[in-house]
């Protein structure tokens, strides 16, 4: 290889490498994406992997029997193990959501929304893990025969909070009469103060159109 070719090869190599290294720097800093080890060593950090034979060390989580993940089956349509996340499906009049973008799942950038099993309401009202519900804000309950369904405050960035906002509804603790009662995935329920768009009564959510469907008249 002549000198020109050698120079071109070296220049191209040098030019190629920083592109990847700079990728994570929002302000264009030339620091590598991986933190420098001398900057701030993490307390008690150990070299990895510590597991025998390589891979990851999750020994504390794998101790004893493997355990079973509650509701770990993905809610795949067409599967025989499909759960019924929307136990209540009303067929009354639809209160159309005029603020949701059109098209299937338009409110969710066209991505189908499916509940995540280990969260209250499948995660529709926020990332409230069933195992950690005491940390969620309790917002009353709805008794239905022998069963009492607790309600929790919707998280501001959740789809459920967006639904309330689209209808101009203000969430309120369940319990008093004449509220808007919205049944979400996995028998979750929240209540709201009625307004000029949505009157008091029971509703379910049509997840695809992001609209409320009222209970049929008695």
């Amino acid at each position: 290889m002549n000198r020109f070719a050698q120079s071109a090869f070296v220049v191209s190599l040098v030019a190629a490498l920083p592109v990847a290294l700079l990728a994570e720097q929002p302000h264009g800093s030339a620091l590598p994406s991986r933190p420098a080890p001398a900057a701030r060593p993490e307390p008690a950090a150990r070299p990895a992997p510590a597991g025998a034979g390589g891979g990851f060390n999750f020994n504390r989580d794998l101790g004893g029997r493997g355990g079973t993940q509650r509701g770990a089956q993905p809610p795949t349509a067409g599967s025989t193990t499909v759960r019924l996340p929307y136990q209540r499906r009303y067929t009354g009049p639809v209160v159309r959501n005029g603020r949701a973008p059109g098209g299937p799942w338009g409110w969710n950038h066209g991505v189908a929304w499916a509940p995540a099993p280990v969260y209250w309401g499948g995660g529709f009202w926020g990332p409230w893990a069933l195992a950690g519900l005491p940390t969620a804000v309790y917002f009353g309950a709805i008794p239905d025969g022998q069963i009492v369904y607790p309600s929790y405050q919707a998280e501001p960035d959740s789809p459920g909070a967006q639904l309330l906002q689209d209808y101009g509804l203000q969430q309120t603790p369940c319990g008093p009469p004449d509220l808007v009662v919205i049944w979400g995935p996995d028998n979750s329920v929240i209540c709201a103060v009625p307004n000029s768009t949505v009157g008091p009564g029971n509703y379910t959510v049509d997840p695809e159109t992001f609209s409320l469907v009222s209970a049929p008249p008695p």
Partner: protein
Amino acid sequence: MTAVRALLAALAASFALLPVAARADGVMRVQQSDGAVQVYHDLKIRLAGHTVWIHSGDRKGVLEVASGACSFVRELQRCLPYATTLHQHGATRTIVLQQGTVYLNLTGDLQRLPHSSQQLLPHALLLFLHTMHGTYVSVKGTLDEVSS
């Protein structure tokens, strides 16, 4: 002519290096309930549907994280993990989750994390898990593969 050919070959070599340099840059931090911390580098991160596959740097372990309830905060996708499985040493074991969050930036632009000054790189992932045994896991890195 030879010089031009050599230049083209050099350019081709440099482009071939680009994906190698950009791939498998994931970092996982595992903090056990006793405070011990382990950090894993050079992870390969694969997204298939709403399931994330995280391959260890030595390719001997794979952590599978299944998520649901995927919604958007502006252009940033946020999912909730509900099942975690470790595939390692020929065995498949469940890691019981309490809760977690997966942020996905599938766009070509930086995206700001909700209520945060931090941003997530284009085509990158940020994942947090809290297991039932009190282990905290965080993963950050570029998505090496994305499939539906």
